[in-house]
C-alpha cells in the first residue's frame, strides 16, 4: 500500500525542552523543521521539573564550571563521560543567558541578576562547601522554560505536528537514518516524514515502573524505535528513585514529612528503620531508607494485598502540626492514597523519576554505535538529546538540576551538528522502497490479531515485574527471575490485540503501539541490571555492595537482538580540564 510522504530538512520527535530548544535553532537557521508530538508541546513532561537549571553563573558567590564539573562527575559515580560533562557545564551559563533573553521569567536578586537557589550535591571548590547554582522560576522552572521555548518556536515558524506519534525509524541499507514513519491520530493514517536529519527528543520511559513520578506519555518511544532498528541502548540499568512516592500513584511525598517526625512502618506495625539505622532511623539518607524499604518488601513484610508497599505514619503529629508545617500533604494523601494522614498512615514505595540511560550519543548529540572496531561510530543523520539520550552526562546517577541543563545544552548542540551536516550534505537521499514496511507490518499484525493479549494487562505485568525485580535495591535471585519474566512478557507483547479497529482517533491503538516501546525499555533495563555485578550510583545490588572500577568502569550497551550486551569505555578525559580520578563517593 502506498504511504503518503512529506519532505523536511529536519524532523524532531518530541516537543519537550530538548526538542523545542533544538527546533528553535534549526528553524532560525532557515531550515524546514517538523516537530512531532503526541500531545500539545506545552503539555510535555518538562513542565514537571521544579528544581531549576544548574549553571555556574556565580551570582550568589564565587563559582566555576570546574566545580560544577566535579560535582557532576562525582554525582555520576564516575560513569559520566568527562568530555560531555565539561562541554555541558561550560555551555550552561550561555544557555541560561540565552533563555533569559528569550523572556524566561527567572527569579531575580535585588541587583537584577538571576537568583540561584541552593540544591543538594552542588559545591564550591571541589566539594568543600555548598554553593547556590540553580537558576529557577519559583517552583515552576520547567513550566516557564517550556512556554518560553514554545513561543519562540512559533515566532520562528517551526511546524508542529500535534497529536502525531512517531512509529518507526527509516534506515536505508547503509544504515543512514532518513526520517520516521508516524501516525496522525486524528485520521489514523500513516505518513513517512522524509528528513535529511532526524533528532529524537522523546523523553524517558518511567512508565515501565508501577511507581513512577512520570506522566503517562513517558513511554520510551524513542528507545523502542531505536532498538527495533538495531541501535543499542546505553546504561539502562540506572534509574533514579525517591523513597516516598504514594503507592500506586507515584505522586511524591516530600522528605519534610519524615523531617517533622513521621516514620515508616511495615505490615506488622514495626518501625523497621530502627533495625537498619539505629541512630538516624527514618532520617537516614535516601538510599539507606529506600534500601530498607525494598528489603522489607522482599522479605514479605510489605503491607497491602500484594505486600508491595510500606506505611508512612504521621497521625501522632496531630492535625495542627500537619496542617501548619506540611501544607498540601493532607490534600495529596487524601487525593492519591485515599487516606487522611491525621488518622491513617500513607502507603508509600520507592518511586522512579529519572532515566540516566538512553540512546548512545557523543557530546555533539550525534548517535554513536560500535562499528568495525570503533566503539563510537556515528550513525549518519541521526541525533538524540534530553532524557532519551545518553551523552553520558549523568552516568550512574544524575545531579539535581542537571536535567534541564542537559535539555538546553544538548538540544542546541544536536541542532548545531545537524545544521553543519546539512550544509555539507545538500539534498535528500532517496527513500528505500520499503521505508514504511516495518510500520505497516506492525499495524497489520495489530489489526489482524485474534485471541491476543490485553494491552492493559501486559502493561500492568511489565510495571509490576520491573518494580518487584528491578527496583531501587536489587537482589541477584530477583534479577535472574526478572529476566526470565520480562522475556515471557516480551513474548506476550508481540500478540497484543485491540478490539476497536477504527481509524479516527483510536487511542487504544496508540496505547498498543506505545506498549511496543515500553517493553524494549523494560527488557533493556532488566537485562543490563542483572549483568552489572557491582553497586554504582543508582544501581544498588545486595550481593555486590561496592563500586568495582577494575571490572565495571564501563558503559553497558544492550541490543534488542537476542538481549545481547556489549560494553564500551567511559571517557575519563575531559576536553581541556584535568581528568577527575575515581574516588569513594561520600557526601
Amino acid at each position: 500500500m502506498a504511504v503518503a510522504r512529506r519532505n523536511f530538512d529536519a524532523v524532531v520527535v518530541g516537543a519537550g525542552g530538548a526538542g523545542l530548544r533544538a527546533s528553535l535553532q534549526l528553524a532560525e537557521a532557515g531550515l524546514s523543521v517538523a516537530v512531532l508530538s503526541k500531545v500539545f508541546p506545552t503539555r510535555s513532561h518538562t513542565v514537571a521539573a521544579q528544581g531549576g537549571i544548574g549553571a555556574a553563573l556565580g551570582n550568589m558567590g564565587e563559582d566555576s564550571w570546574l566545580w560544577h564539573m566535579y560535582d557532576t562527575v562525582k554525582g555520576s559515580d564516575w560513569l559520566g563521560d568527562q568530555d560531555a560533562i565539561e562541554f555541558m557545564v561550560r555551555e550552561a551559563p550561555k544557555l541560561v543567558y540565552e533563555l533569559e533573553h528569550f523572556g524566561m521569567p527567572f527569579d531575580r536578586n535585588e541587583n537584577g541578576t538571576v537568583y540561584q537557589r541552593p540544591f543538594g550535591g552542588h559545591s564550591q571548590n571541589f566539594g568543600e562547601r555548598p554553593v547556590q547554582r540553580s537558576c529557577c522560576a519559583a517552583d515552576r522552572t520547567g513550566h516557564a522554560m517550556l512556554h518560553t521555548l514554545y513561543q519562540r518556536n512559533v515566532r520562528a515558524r517551526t511546524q508542529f505536528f500535534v497529536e502525531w506519534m512517531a512509529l518507526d525509524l527509516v534506515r536505508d541499507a547503509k544504515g543512514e537514518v532518513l526520517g520516521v514513519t508516524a501516525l496522525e491520530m486524528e485520521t489514523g493514517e500513516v505518513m513517512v516524514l522524509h528528513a535529511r536529519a532526524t533528532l529524537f527528543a522523546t523523553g524517558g520511559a518511567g512508565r515501565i515502573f508501577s511507581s513512577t513520578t512520570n506522566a503517562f506519555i513517558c513511554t520510551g518511544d524513542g528507545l523502542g524505535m531505536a532498538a527495533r532498528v538495531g541501535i543499542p541502548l546505553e546504561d539502562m540499568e540506572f534509574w533514579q528513585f525517591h523513597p516516598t512516592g504514594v503507592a500506586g500513584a507515584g505522586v511524591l511525598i516530600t522528605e519534610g514529612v519524615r523531617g517533622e517526625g513521621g516514620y515508616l512502618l511495615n505490615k506488622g506495625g514495626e518501625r523497621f528503620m530502627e533495625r537498619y539505622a539505629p541512630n538516624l532511623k527514618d532520617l537516614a539518607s535516601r538510599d539507606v531508607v529506600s534500601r530498607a524499604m525494598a528489603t522489607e518488601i522482599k522479605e514479605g513484610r510489605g503491607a497491602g494485598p500484594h505486600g508491595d508497599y510500606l506505611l508512612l505514619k504521621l497521625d501522632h503529629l496531630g492535625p495542627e502540626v500537619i496542617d501548619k508545617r506540611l501544607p498540601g500533604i493532607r490534600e495529596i494523601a487524601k487525593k492519591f492514597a485515599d487516606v487522611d494522614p491525621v488518622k491513617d498512615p500513607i502507603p508509600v514505595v520507592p518511586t522512579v523519576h529519572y532515566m540516566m540511560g538512553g540512546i548512545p550519543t557523543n557530546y555533539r548529540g550525534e548517535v554513536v554505535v560500535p562499528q568495525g572496531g570503533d566503539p563510537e561510530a556515528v550513525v549518519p543523520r541521526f541525533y538524540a538529546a534530553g532524557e532519551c539520550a545518553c551523552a553520558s552526562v549523568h552516568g550512574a546517577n544524575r545531579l539535581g538540576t542537571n536535567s534541564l541543563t542537559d535539555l538546553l545544552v544538548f538540544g542546541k548542540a544536536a541542532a548545531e551538528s545537524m545544521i553543519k551536516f546539512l550544509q555539507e550534505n545538500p539534498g535528500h537521499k532517496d527513500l528505500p522502497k520499503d521505508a514504511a514496511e516495518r510500520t505497516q507490518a506492525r499495524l497489520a499484525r495489530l489489526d489482524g490479531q485474534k485471541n491476543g493479549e490485553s494491552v492493559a494487562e501486559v502493561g500492568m505485568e511489565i510495571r509490576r515485574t520491573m518494580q518487584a525485580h528491578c527496583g531501587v535495591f536489587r537482589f541477584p535471585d530477583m534479577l535472574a527471575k526478572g529476566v526470565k519474566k520480562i522475556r515471557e512478557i516480551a513474548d506476550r507483547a508481540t500478540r497484543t490485540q485491540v478490539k476497536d479497529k477504527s481509524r479516527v482517533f483510536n487511542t487504544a491503538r496508540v496505547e498498543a503501539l506505545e506498549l511496543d516501546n515500553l517493553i524494549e525499555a523494560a527488557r533493556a533495563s532488566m537485562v543490563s541490571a542483572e549483568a552489572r555485578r557491582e553497586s554504582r550510583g543508582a544501581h544498588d545490588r545486595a550481593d555486590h555492595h561496592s563500586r568495582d572500577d577494575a571490572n565495571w568502569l564501563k558503559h553497558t550497551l544492550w541490543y534488542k537482538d537476542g538481549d545481547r550486551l556489549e560494553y564500551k569505555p567511559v571517557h575519563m578525559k575531559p576536553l581541556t580540564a584535568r581528568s577527575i580520578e575515581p574516588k569513594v563517593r561520600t557526601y
Partner: protein
Amino acid sequence: MNMTNVEMNRLRWSCRRGLLENELVLERFLHAHAASLEGERLAAFRTLLDYSDDELWSLVSGRRECGDPALGEVVELLRNC
C-alpha cells in the same frame, strides 16, 4: 446528546498532561462523570483542559481559587476526585 466514541477518545487524550498529578485527577473525573458530560459542564471541562498544567493543578489542589463562575462546578468536582 452523549458524545461519540471518537469525541470521547479526543477528550481522554486531552487529559494526557505533563504533570502526573493532573492526569490522575482527570482520569478519575472521567471515570466518575463522563456519562454526565454535556452542555455547560462539558464546555467548562474543555476550558479547564486548555489551562496550563501549572494553572490547572493550582485550581485542583486548592492553592488558587477559580475566578470564573462558569467553571466553579467542574473545579469543585475535580477537587473531590
